[in-house]
């Protein structure tokens, strides 16, 4: 970690080696934050200050720095290593530390906080505690996207989809509110510096609520670029199976709890928590490894339009230029092009290429001329009909004043 200057901002992150933690560290460093990473394992970056930290041990000491915020992400994913009481006590130590120094504390909770499972109960107890100390509780739905790390719910889903040839099709399907891990990290960093979030329990809504089946299908299609057979699974059966599993194999209860966490997802509006809309992205975009499927979308569209223009498979070079041009229009918050404009753009790109009509040498044989004449007659008729259609609104030109 580099030596600090006077104006540097410090952020304390617990659970920094986990899935959300890693992405938060990346985003924080990108935005110029200095990070004090509290985690069991050393974080993946070397430009942060690592302080070894375990939930089952007291809060460690770290060098005094001008800390601007604390983000508490650490939790016992296995559900058996740390007792619930100890997990709550560890959160309390952190909350007290932040409260005494007047530093805003953000606790990342879950959509499932409060449900009658171990996970839900622990989350709810920590939430109450954090609110008591003036912290902010941030509830989120299904965090997804980015690269895989830790052993969160998204990692678990990803593993299932990757390993098994089938995906469950739950009946009825539980609803999920997906939020991309980068969107979450960006919001957290922005919220740390924004006054007005203290003592509030918020639900971050990325603008999309979908069924779990839809999410799994997108996971196959966009992240793994594969196809999996959806197998109908009645939700009641799964629920019964997990109860049995917990009773029969207490040591495997974390697996059952993970399944429980999935199927017991409550509708957001039913939780009665203040919902905060944050800038988000669709799963189709977020599930790409790059975090955005926009370029792929341009490439697909370019391929389609250029094929229609050229009458054959479009050269890759032209398709790539099409995608770049569409992106160029949006650089710096520029207006994206309409569908008609994108078609005109494709025409402009064809025109500026060796495949342009002006670059073609047409054979002067009788059949070539006949076919071109027939083509011209057909499209001429179409154009004339189009003109007749538009005549009433475009012609004659209106004279003002």
């Amino acid at each position, binding site marked *: 970690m580099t030596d600090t200057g006077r104006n540097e901002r410090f952020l304390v992150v617990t659970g920094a080696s986990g899935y959300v933690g890693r992405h938060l560290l990346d985003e924080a460093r990108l935005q110029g934050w200095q990070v004090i990473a509290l985690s069991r394992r050393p974080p993946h970056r070397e430009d942060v200050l690592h302080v070894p930290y375990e939930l089952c041990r007291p809060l460690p000491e770290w060098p005094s720095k001008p800390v601007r915020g604390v983000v508490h992400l650490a939790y016992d994913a296995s559900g058996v290593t740390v007792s619930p009481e100890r997990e709550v006590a560890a959160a309390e130590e952190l909350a007290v530390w932040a409260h005494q120094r007047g530093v805003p504390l953000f606790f990342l909770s879950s959509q499932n906080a409060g449900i009658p499972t171990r996970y839900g109960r622990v989350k709810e107890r920590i939430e109450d505690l954090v609110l008591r100390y003036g912290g902010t509780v941030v509830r989120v739905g299904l965090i997804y996207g980015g690269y895989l790390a830790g052993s969160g719910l998204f990692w678990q889903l990803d593993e299932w989809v990757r390993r098994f040839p089938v995906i469950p099709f739950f009946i009825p399907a539980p609803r999920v509110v997906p939020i991309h891990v980068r969107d979450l990290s960006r919001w957290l960093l922005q919220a740390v510096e924004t006054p007005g979030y203290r003592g509030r329990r918020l639900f971050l809504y990325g603008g999309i609520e979908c069924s779990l089946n839809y999410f799994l299908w997108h996971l196959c299609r966009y992240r793994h670029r594969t196809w999996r057979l959806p197998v109908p699974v009645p939700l009641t059966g799964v629920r019964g199976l997990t109860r049995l599993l917990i009773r029969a194999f207490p040591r495997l209860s974390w697996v059952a709890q993970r399944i429980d966490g999935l199927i017991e997802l409550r509708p957001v509006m039913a939780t009665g928590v203040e919902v905060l809309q944050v800038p988000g992205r669709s799963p189709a975009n977020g599930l790409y490894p790059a975090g955005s499927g926009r370029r792929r979308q341009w490439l697909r569209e370019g391929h389609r*339009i250029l094929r*229609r*223009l050229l009458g054959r498979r479009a050269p890759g*070079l*032209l398709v790539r*230029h099409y995608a770049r*041009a569409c992106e*160029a*229009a949006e*650089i*710096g918050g*520029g*207006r994206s*092009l309409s569908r*008609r*404009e994108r*078609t*005109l*753009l494709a*025409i*402009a*790109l064809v*025109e*500026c*290429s*060796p495949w*342009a*009509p*002006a*670059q*073609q*040498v*047409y054979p*002067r044989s009788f059949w070539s*001329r006949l076919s*071109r*004449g027939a*083509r*011209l007659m057909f*499209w*001429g008729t*179409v*154009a*004339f009909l*189009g*003109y007749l*259609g*538009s*005549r009433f609104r*475009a*012609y*004659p*030109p209106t*004279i*003002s*004043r």
Partner: protein
Amino acid sequence: MSISTQWDAIVVGAGPAGLTAVRTLLEGGWRVCLLDAGERPAPLPPRMDLWVFRQNPCHWRWFLGDRLESFRTPEQDSPKLRTPAAQAVLAGYSETLGIETEGFRVIGSLAPGGLSNVWGAGVACFDGADLSDWPVPADALQEAYITVARRIGVSGSAEDDLADYLGLRIPLQPPLPLDPPADVLYRRYQQHRRRVQAAGLILGRSRNAVLSEPMGRREACTRCGFCLYGCGYQAIYHAALELEDLRRHPGLTYVPGQWAERLDVGLEGPRLTTLDRRTGERHRWTASVILLACGTLATTRLVLDALGSFDRPVRLLSQPSMGFALWLPKCLAQPYLERFFGLAQLSFVVTSRAEGGLPIAAGNLFLACAVPLWELTSRFPGPPIWGYRLLRDLVPSLLLGNALFAASLSDHTVTLGRDGKLKVRGGYRPELSQRLRQVTRSLRRGFRYCGAWLLPGSVRLVTPGADVHYAGTLPHRRFPRLGETDVMGAVVGLEGVYAIDASVLPSLPAKAHTFTVMANAHRIATAVLQRYRRAWVYQRSL
């Protein structure tokens, strides 16, 4: 704030009019300061053929702009004004001038060379009938036409049916060769001249400020096809080209980046306050004579502000114009041209038989292949892919045309508000509707005899102001009132201030006016030279 009095004259604006006056004054031995709002000249296209340059797919950025600027402007604009080079020339004009519009599209330039960077290079002389409203004798202007034509280089034919209309007596270089569709049309016209003229259409070769023979550092036209984007060989005249020559003259001080903010007349003469666009500092400039050539709207703003004439509408002249497309079946299935001239190849005049053969509209014809295919497709009524499939085969046999009407058919006003905003209100007179029908009918019949079809649905009237021919806000009058100019362009109420750009034109017939504006600027500068020379001789004799 600094005061400078080391020049005999200050010229504001480095457009065609300003540079014509600067040259005239420098040749008269004056020390001249040229203030210009522009800093960087417009980018020029490469020195190669368009069809070769287009073979590289990476060059789309050059044609469309890094951020696709060509797609940002509305469809009604001329394709020439949508190129990235033109966008760079036109950028920031309305914002800097503080213009509010209603039913009018304002187009202006702050770049060195002004709007001549994007002009069509059409040359036409005003004749006796056109100058009937002017207090200026036709002969005085005729001499100026000849001087300016020698300087900028004009090519065209002096022996065709338009010789009377476009001006006979200016020195001309040989015309550029006609490209196939225009050539076919012109041959047919010559065969059926009487029938075409009976339909009210007269056709002839265009006069363009384009070199067909080298002149100084400028090369002759190579027909590379880049005309829409400028000319890398500098065969097309534009004022920025002349600026490079003039800057070497010891009598000229060129100060770029100066935006003329205020004008007033003090005891020591006229004073101009400018804003340095780079540093944000204000400078004050004084001289015995200040010549305003910063474009009709900017000059009008300065003068109205100096006279305190707020909230009073002033008439603005602007020519209504229309566009259309012609199809020549005889050229169908012809290959695309590799080399061609992209500006006007043929010109025409539409006359009214009912009005004794009086010209009611005039225009030019261009090759459709000079305009990007996507531009043509964007005007197609229907899905662009259908348009592309039709036009890719049709383009070699298409000609595009534009026609200008007299500005008396327009009804535009400019008002300077007390908040410093210039409000431009535009509209056409009701008579224009009937004129448009009359001209369309003549074009359809006339070109039909020439073997060309006027494509249905292609006739379009452009938005008021999109013709970019603004004039007449401070017109020359024999007995001028406040806010008008005398025969020499002297603004009444502002001693020592002369307007020399298009704002002084009392009328605007159906002709391109840039050449006349340059000739008039030369005439005024010559008159100013003579007036002050006499005054100084008189002072010395005392």
